[in-house]
């Protein structure tokens, strides 16, 4: 697509970059007026990403690997930066990785936020980030063969499961504690649960000195199945299932990525409907988390009350989409159901009710005596660490960084209305909880405003053609933060590459810093303040560094201790 040069937002950042690094940029390609992909020399990669990140208000959204050998003869790695300075845009730094050496310089030493992305590219494509400080596997299990990289185009069928090559777990957990600590392993391997993770807390008595953890125990291989089996519109419904809480945000991010790549003009009414549904989803998700905060600090009555009120948001979703979850409302080019007069009236009624109900509960939550002490100053996420690791959503907004995709890169219908970014400087669990509570009311305001301003007209366009090998980003602000998708169309009515990054992916790497310096009984509420899909982390190992002993404790026991703070499971 040709983007007229006067429309381009971010061009001055590129000229400033050319000023300091004259020969770094080999190629520049604009996908939309606010999205550009620059191909850089491998030798300049570190400097380019570092300059954009620290000198032009960049944040790393995602790192995408792509096997482009059949298109250009090389592999490619894309570093997606969300530029949030005066010129808000996305700059994607692309580096080509030769098919013979399969090596490229790691950016992690200068921009720590790239660490998970580079580890994943190493697993999935077998490309070697030279100088990557943490070379452990991220996604692949310990018993996976060394030379099998699932997302390479010539590697394997999506249904194949290779024979295990190891019997035991070999993953080394990292403990940066200076003195001796005890290990407290938490989780996982409860195979019936959908999202287990293993936490290892290194403790000295009751104090957490350091923590390490491992996710991806039940990696579903969604990117592979989308690239191998499904058509463009079918992936929309798969994206709905990336998350059981905020799946619609993924569905919107995916359709937006294809719409951006092909330059589809989505009807304004469809975009407004998408935003209304995204806010409905945010409301139920935030109310859920507010309830969980109550639960983790032992205020179970509050938990029950928040869940009772949350039910109204669920019923609203059912009214508007036909389902409480997995809305199935998107197609590429628009939405499948309109919001009719009767539904709009009912939405306004429920929204007014929710405003009153939630206000009452939030007042109760903040006034309950023993809640304050459990969330105030607990689980601190330092502002600078947040800056270095690019976390997203209420987590980063609770640490004084006002970044919100709805305002920074207005997508769907957010351009039609005024967006407020909530942020607090407390850096603790309380700050994150306050951000969420305020955002519930913002969501209600947005829903009302969107119902007022949504223009009439079509809700779906079919006036476009699929073109091969076009790519672009799609993004949304999910309840947990920015979701970002990078899609490239193929030549067989299937995606050539789909990279889908959920918000919590960017939030896990900072958790260890949030746990340090707190006590074991605070661990559940700290992890809960990330609002991850945590329910399935069912066991914890504690390692006492001084006594050199290790105990495994069921998660119910840790949570109970978190609530009651009596009868420590470690004694």
């Amino acid at each position, binding site marked *: 697509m040709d983007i007229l040069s006067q429309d381009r937002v971010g061009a001055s950042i590129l000229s400033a970059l050319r000023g300091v690094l004259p020969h770094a940029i080999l190629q520049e390609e604009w996908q939309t007026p606010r999205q550009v992909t620059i191909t850089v020399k491998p030798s300049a990669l570190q400097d380019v990403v570092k300059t954009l990140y620290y000198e032009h208000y960049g944040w790393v959204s995602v790192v995408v690997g792509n096997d482009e050998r059949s298109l250009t003869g090389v592999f490619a790695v894309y570093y997606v930066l969300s530029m949030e300075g005066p010129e808000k845009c996305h700059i994607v730094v692309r580096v080509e990785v030769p098919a013979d050496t399969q090596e490229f310089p790691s950016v992690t030493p200068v921009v720590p936020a790239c660490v998970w992305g580079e580890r994943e590219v190493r697993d999935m494509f077998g490309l070697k980030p030279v100088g990557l400080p943490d070379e452990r596997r991220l996604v692949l299990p310990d018993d996976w063969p060394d030379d099998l990289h699932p997302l390479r185009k010539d590697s394997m069928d999506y249904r194949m499961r290779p024979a295990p090559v190891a019997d035991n777990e070999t993953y080394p957990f990292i403990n940066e504690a200076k003195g001796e600590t005890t290990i407290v392993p938490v989780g996982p391997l409860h195979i019936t649960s959908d999202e287990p993770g293993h936490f290892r807390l290194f403790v000295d008595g009751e104090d957490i000195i350091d923590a390490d953890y491992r996710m991806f125990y039940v990696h579903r291989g969604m990117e592979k199945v989308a690239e191998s089996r*499904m058509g463009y519109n079918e992936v929309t*419904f798969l994206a709905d299932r990336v998350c059981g809480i905020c799946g619609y945000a993924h569905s919107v991010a995916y359709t937006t990525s294809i719409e951006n790549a092909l330059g589809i003009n989505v009807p304004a009414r469809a975009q407004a409907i998408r935003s209304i549904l995204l806010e409905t989803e945010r409301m139920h998700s935030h109310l859920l988390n507010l309830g969980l905060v109550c639960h983790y600090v032992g205020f179970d009555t509050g938990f029950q009350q928040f869940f009772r009120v949350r039910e109204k948001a669920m019923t609203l979703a*059912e009214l508007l989409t036909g389902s409480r979850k*997995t809305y*199935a409302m998107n197609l590429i080019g628009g939405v499948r159901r309109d919001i009719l007069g009767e539904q709009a009236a009912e939405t306004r009624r429920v929204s007014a009710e929710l405003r009153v109900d939630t206000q009452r509960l939030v*007042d*109760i939550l903040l006034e309950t005596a023993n809640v304050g002490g459990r969330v105030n100053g607990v689980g601190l996420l330092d502002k600078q660490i947040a800056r270095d690791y690019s976390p997203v959503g209420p987590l980063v907004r609770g640490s004084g960084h006002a970044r919100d995709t709805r305002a920074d890169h207005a997508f769907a219908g957010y351009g039609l209305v005024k967006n407020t970014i909530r942020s607090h400087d407390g850096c603790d669990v309380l700050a994150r909880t306050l951000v969420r509570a305020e955002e519930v009311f913002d969501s209600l305001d947005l829903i009302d405003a969107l119902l007022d301003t949504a223009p009439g007209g079509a809700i779906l366009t079919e006036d476009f053609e699929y073109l091969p090998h076009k790519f672009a980003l799609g993004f949304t602000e999910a309840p947990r933060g920015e979701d970002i998708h990078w899609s490239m169309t193929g030549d067989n009515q299937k995606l050539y590459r789909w990279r889908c990054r959920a918000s919590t992916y960017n939030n896990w790497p900072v958790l260890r810093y949030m746990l340090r310096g707190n006590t074991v009984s605070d661990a559940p509420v700290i992890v809960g303040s990330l609002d991850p899909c945590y329910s399935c982390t069912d066991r914890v190992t504690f390692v006492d560094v001084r006594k050199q002993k290790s105990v495994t404790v069921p998660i119910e026991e840790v949570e109970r201790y978190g609530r009651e703070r009596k009868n420590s499971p470690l004694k």
Partner: protein
Amino acid sequence: MLKLLKEIFRTGEATVKYPFAPLEVSKDFRGKPEHEAEKCIACAACTIACPPNAIQMETDIEAGTRTWSINYGRCVFCGRCEESCPTGAIYLTPDFELAVGSKADLMRRAVFTLAQCEVCGKPFAPAKEIAYAGALLAQASEAEELTDRQRTLLATCPECKRRADLQKLADMAIARQMETRK
């Protein structure tokens, strides 16, 4: 604390009687898809639209049948089948109670007969689909009945049609040669 007590009294009972009383869902709830085999023409549009491959079709040339099937265990209730169906044979209902005692009960099947090609005699397409195409053609040409040529074309399999076309082309070439020689 007082506020909380007040809230609890204001709320009263929040639990519902389900499953001892039926649970009402919203008007356009997306539940179990119902298939009406009488209306279905086995065109396979729904099998292509279905994202999780819950709806599938299998053709058995030996038996001369095509079996349509839905696996409710795989269904995601998106309703793409309803959107793609040309005859309204499949549609979503508000029924959400799909639990069964045995996995096999989640499958529903419908068997359709394939029509035999007029020329080679091999089964090639569902008889109902051909009838439907015939009705569409008749409607398009605003005629009461199909012409004999249309009827033959409908009842011939693609392979025989290709062969007939080739034959016709070859005949034409000979005819043209004969003409130039004259």
